[in-house]
């Protein structure tokens, strides 16, 4: 697989949220606004990239039996760095994300990529893979956050978008709205992929028929 494909697969084809269903807890919990989605996504991307690089560099040194524990310690170290940095530099963001910053440590996207990719590939590929996955994660969070903020509050990134007559759907900001929106987003993602598969199949069939004639 080329480096470009390695990067791109995280964005759509193997999107960690929409396809692999990993890291669902922060996806649902912090996406009450688009800005929160961006913040959480970037924090996760940072931890994912640093941890992937570190684990890839250490992959020959870490014994197989204790690898999960070692990965977790590496991840936890970077999470602590992010947590303390956010508290110092972006206290507001840190406040609104709350316990979900230290909880990045148990985000299965990160451990999943460490186990499935970084521990088996060289540092360059591991970083590219991590960046792709991280940005795919950020994009999904931002989309979900935007939809919920727009319908639940009438704003987007804090700017009033909906007309004044619009009555906000409070439920979108509440937990129930998170589940519903994500469920429908998954449906839309699958629908799009099914359409594309069918179209590809039809083209292939037409090509085969043309060849037969």
């Amino acid at each position, binding site marked *: 697989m080329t480096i470009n494909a390695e990067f791109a697969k995280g964005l759509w084809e193997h999107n960690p949220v929409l396809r692999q*269903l*990993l890291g*669902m*807890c*922060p996806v*649902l*919990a912090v996406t009450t606004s688009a800005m929160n989605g961006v913040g959480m996504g970037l924090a996760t991307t940072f931890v994912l990239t640093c941890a992937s690089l570190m684990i890839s560099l250490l992959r020959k040194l870490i014994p197989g039996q204790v690898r*999960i*524990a070692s990965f*977790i*310690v590496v991840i*936890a*170290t970077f*999470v*602590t760095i992010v*947590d*303390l940095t956010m508290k110092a530099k972006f206290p507001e963001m840190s406040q609104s994300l709350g*316990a979900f910053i*230290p*909880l990045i*440590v*148990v*985000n*299965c996207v990160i*451990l999943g990529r460490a186990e499935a990719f970084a521990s088996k590939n060289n540092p360059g590929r591991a970083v590219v893979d991590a960046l792709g996955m991280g940005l795919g994660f950020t994009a999904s969070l931002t989309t979900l956050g935007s939809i919920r903020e727009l319908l639940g509050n009438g704003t987007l990134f804090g700017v009033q978008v909906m007309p004044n007559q619009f009555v906000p759907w409070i*439920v979108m900001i*509440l*937990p*129930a*709205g*998170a*589940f*519903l929106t*994500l*469920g*429908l987003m*998954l*449906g*839309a993602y*699958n*629908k799009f992929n*099914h359409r594309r598969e069918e179209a590809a199949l039809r083209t292939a069939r037409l090509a085969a028929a043309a060849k037969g004639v």
Partner: protein
Amino acid sequence: MELFGIFLTAALINNFVLSQFLGICPFIGVSGKLSAATSMGMATTFVMVMAAMVTFLIRQYILAPLGLDFLQTVSFILVIASLVQFVEMVIKKVSKPLYRSLGIYLPLITTNCAIMGLCLFAAMRHYSFFQSLVFALGAGVGFTLAIVLMAGIREELELADIPRSLRGAGITMVVAGTLALGFMGFAGMKF
């Protein structure tokens, strides 16, 4: 009464899965069968109670006196990882079929944010030993309740005609949304 309040708040009003979004992965992954869901709930509850007790002791007697609070995340996750390893060995020894049906989700209890979240919340709210214990018990009961409810609904859903794109995780999310709406009813309870 205060302990009872903590228990009910964790189990129903602020249900860990349906209103705090903790432990969603097993909630989606293991809720296909009622029996597996029940044992997952039990295993998680057990790890939660143990983790709450051990992390309380670590916080109170090691991290706080030495001023090492910044090591909280690292030390908590290590405690949880070793507890999960222990539970895995016990289940493997006691019941092979159960071990097989839980599959990959058993070691993944380590990365179940419900457990880590529980320890962090208990630390943030400065709960005492017994408060942490009751909090963990409530959270475990709430998690078990949510996952068992979900498994029951999904067993029924198997016969339903669902649009192709929504099959699997999509419809599970929508059902979870409806459950979450239902659990909002508990928000009126005050202690």
